[in-house]
């Protein structure tokens, strides 16, 4: 599903280059639950951003379902973005000025989904995550775990095929972390959503079915 071929990311420093990622080769198949691990600054977040089209690689090729992303039209990439990829962030990244309901609804708005369908989809997700009672609250009125729950709800509401999660439990205590990870596992197994997570935690990494170690821009398997 995701194929990275000799992906590099660097910034010019003086006359040389400072590599964040160097010639990464990586394939992630449909239905996998992959954990990317590595110390701070090893390039794992950059790798996730590249997969999520938030950043462009300096070199190399990225194929999404066999199609080269760099050759896609802007429109197609936006479609891919909206339809196939969902994001979950360490700091939840909810929009402070929007309620829980509105936050979850936002990605659907960008997909031009009809009002009635939006309503039913958001209602489904709220129901599934058991947060119906909180739909009119603002992010600042929720605990960290609840915010992340909303973050995940927002990621899956547009029915993506892949969820990219950047340290989704980094700001949570262990009980909350556990339930979030179980939720990911469920999404992976029941909904067949491919999940790629970046994590520091060995415990969290075990929820996945593959671990990729990254250090100084290289993959160490």
């Amino acid at each position: 599903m995701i194929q990275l071929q000799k992906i590099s990311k660097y910034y010019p420093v003086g006359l040389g280059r400072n590599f964040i990622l160097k010639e990464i080769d990586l394939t992630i198949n449909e239905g996998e639950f992959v954990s990317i691990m590595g110390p701070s600054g090893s390039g794992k977040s950059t790798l996730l951003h590249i997969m999520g089209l938030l950043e462009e690689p300096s070199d190399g090729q990225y194929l999404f379902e066999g199609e080269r992303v760099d050759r896609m039209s802007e429109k197609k990439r936006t479609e891919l973005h909206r339809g196939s990829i969902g994001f979950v962030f360490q700091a939840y990244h909810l929009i402070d000025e929007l309620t829980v309901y509105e936050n979850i609804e936002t990605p659907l708005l960008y997909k031009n989904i009809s009002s009635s369908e939006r309503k039913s989809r958001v209602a489904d997700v709220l129901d599934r995550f058991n947060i119906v009672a909180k739909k009119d609250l603002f992010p600042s009125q929720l605990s960290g775990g609840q915010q992340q729950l909303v973050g995940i709800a927002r990621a899956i509401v547009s029915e993506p095929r892949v969820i990219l999660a950047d340290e989704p439990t980094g700001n949570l205590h262990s009980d909350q972390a556990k339930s979030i990870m179980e939720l990911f596992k469920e999404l992976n197994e029941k909904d067949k959503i491919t999940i790629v997570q970046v994590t520091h935690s060995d415990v969290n990494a075990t929820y996945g079915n593959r671990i990729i170690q990254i250090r100084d821009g290289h993959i160490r398997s």
Partner: protein
Amino acid sequence: MLLDNYIQVAWRNLTSRKLYSGIKIGGLAAGLCVGILILLFVGHELSYDRWHKGSDKIFTLVNRLKLNTDTIQLEKFNYAIAPRIREEYSSVNDYSRISNALANDVVIQSVKNPALKDAEQNIMFADANFFSFFSFELKAGSATAVLQQPFSMVISEQMAKKYFGQTMAIGQQLLYDNKYLFQVTGIMADMPSNSSIKADFILSASSWNGMDALKTLVTDSRGNGGPFTVFLKLNNPTDATLLEKQLTGEIKEGEFPVRAILRPFIDTHKETTGQVRYLKLFPLVAGLILLMAFINYMSLTTANAFRRVKEISIRKSLGANYKHIAWQFYVESGIYALIAFGAAILLFVFLHNTLFARFDIKIDDRFLFNPIAISIYLGLLILTVLVSGSYPAFILSRYKPAEGLRLGKHRSVTKVLTVFQFVIAGILIVSSIIIRDQLHFFKHTNTGVNRDHILMLPFRSSIGTNYQTYKSQVAALKEVEGTGTARYPLYEGVDIWFVNDEESKSSYSLSVLQVDEPLIRLCDLQWKEKPIDLKLGASNTIVLNETAVRNLNIDRAPIGKVVKIGGLNKEVVGIVKDFNFSSLHRAITPLALFIEKENSLAWGKETSGCLYVKFSPRANLPGLLNQIDKIHAGIDPQSTFQYQFLDDAFNRMYKEENQLMNIFDGFTAITILIAALGLLGLATFSAEQRTKEIGIRKVLGANLGQLVLLLSKEFIKLVFVSLIVATPVAWYLMKLWLQQFAYRVELNVWMFMLSAALVLTVAIIAIGWQVLKAALRNPVTSLKITSD
């Protein structure tokens, strides 16, 4: 809908940060209010007379006469010239004449209620076709019929109310000048404020044949001059140039070369009032103030961008592209603009009467709703959204989530914008100070005339030979220190005579004031060569001013020289020192005084004149005026009592500058307000962004003074840069402005120092509050705030 989502976010952002939103909206609203005001004024000025049907085909006949160095414009003609022109030239479709001869200050009296009378200012005689030639609205009466008959009149609604109240005015009569009965045949709507023809009473010109004083004016056809303004309606506006040439060939004014000019009717206002000189400046000023308001909005929004970066990143990760983000910020500025616009309209509704009065602008309320005005409002609203939304939308939509917002570049843009605002503020402040100083100079410089405590009391010819009685009764009043007489109130005009120089075969124009000898003492005019009493008042003598002596080339031994003036030989018997008998805009021109004997019967016999009264500085003015009014009413009951103070008359000549000063003061205040708001906003953000830094510095031992300096240094530097840019620009512009005056102040360092001090004070006040607040904050709380 996505739009709802944007509106929600914008609205919640707006309400959660009230000070910041208030500054943004307040700045925009102030700018928009001024923008509306100025554009309405300009729109109104430009709409003068254009609302007449076929206004582009109407032209006013003007003759331009060249007399050596002087050009004289003749705008009034005799009765016969207009029909003759139409007869001879097929390009002329129609003509219409109006005249206000013997129609100013005439007493109009109700027949039913004789106590109801008043000296009316706006009376006019007009041809029968007046209402079909022009497009003035008639509320009652038919356009073609109302002025057909002699002694018929059309009055304005306002006058109908004044003289007839609720009763039907049509068919009733009004007494004109105590002699003639006119029948009201029509009621017209009050003339719009954007009409160069202004009248409350329009009387049929055919009445003249039945009016003794005016009869001769109709029949007199010597020369071309007369009492009528002549309007010609051409078949085609482009015929004007040819017709001008043809008329120039035909019309002669004695031996002088004449050029006939057809002035487009729609240019009347522009060409006959001075206001237009500054009119060109107004859109520029409006533009600048609007731009400042927009800049304020943009730089505040941009400064706030770091708060929005997170939201934009999230939106981008959820599938928004740059168009979505740009659109969102346009929607947001649209909301701000709408609110600001609403506030501006409210401000305008509540303030426009005060503002119009202060700026001495007259605009009908109904003009505020006409299509021009409405397109101004809509245009401003759209412009506001487009311009103020543009920069934030541009930089925020191009922000790439993973790269972080590079605020550095935009911070310098914000700095440039702030400098720009303060440059404008600086220029306006300097200009205000200089205009103020020039006006002060006008009012307080020594003009050679002592204007203190002098009343001018114009009298009409109806006073007749009783003038001497009137004068002596007024002079006998306890609080009156002296009296004098002249043909006209000073500063309201002079007669122009021509002097023929036999030797050089050329002629000069010479201003003439007809005065009596006590008036010279009353106004403290200084003699250079005092004449022998015996010769004063003799009909063949004149007194000249120094400039006239110089211009007539009789510097050596002028006394006793004979000057041929208006065809008459007059002996120069005395010389007065130069004094300013007209405004200080112009240098003193050659002047002759015709001095009449005090006790002669020269005054009041046939013509009107003006009694000057010097009153005691301790006089009780209302009481004194009341006493004089009673004396006047006893001697000349036919005319109404009028008065003005010499000092006021003098100051009125600088009405235009006064108006300019008021306008500049207003604009300057608004500009300073907007610039200060902008600075306040930026200081707020700077303090907010540096909260953590300030906390750390405090913990490390920085004291209050050091922190205040740290926070304000950046802004004060910007203000200094602005002043450095503004000073030469203001110096140049004001130098240019001052050049139009013959008497003017010198540009001085203190003017610039004062404005610099003002700008700095404003800046310090604007940032001081936020800076102090930030510096005084307890480091424990400030570090806590930023830790999450």
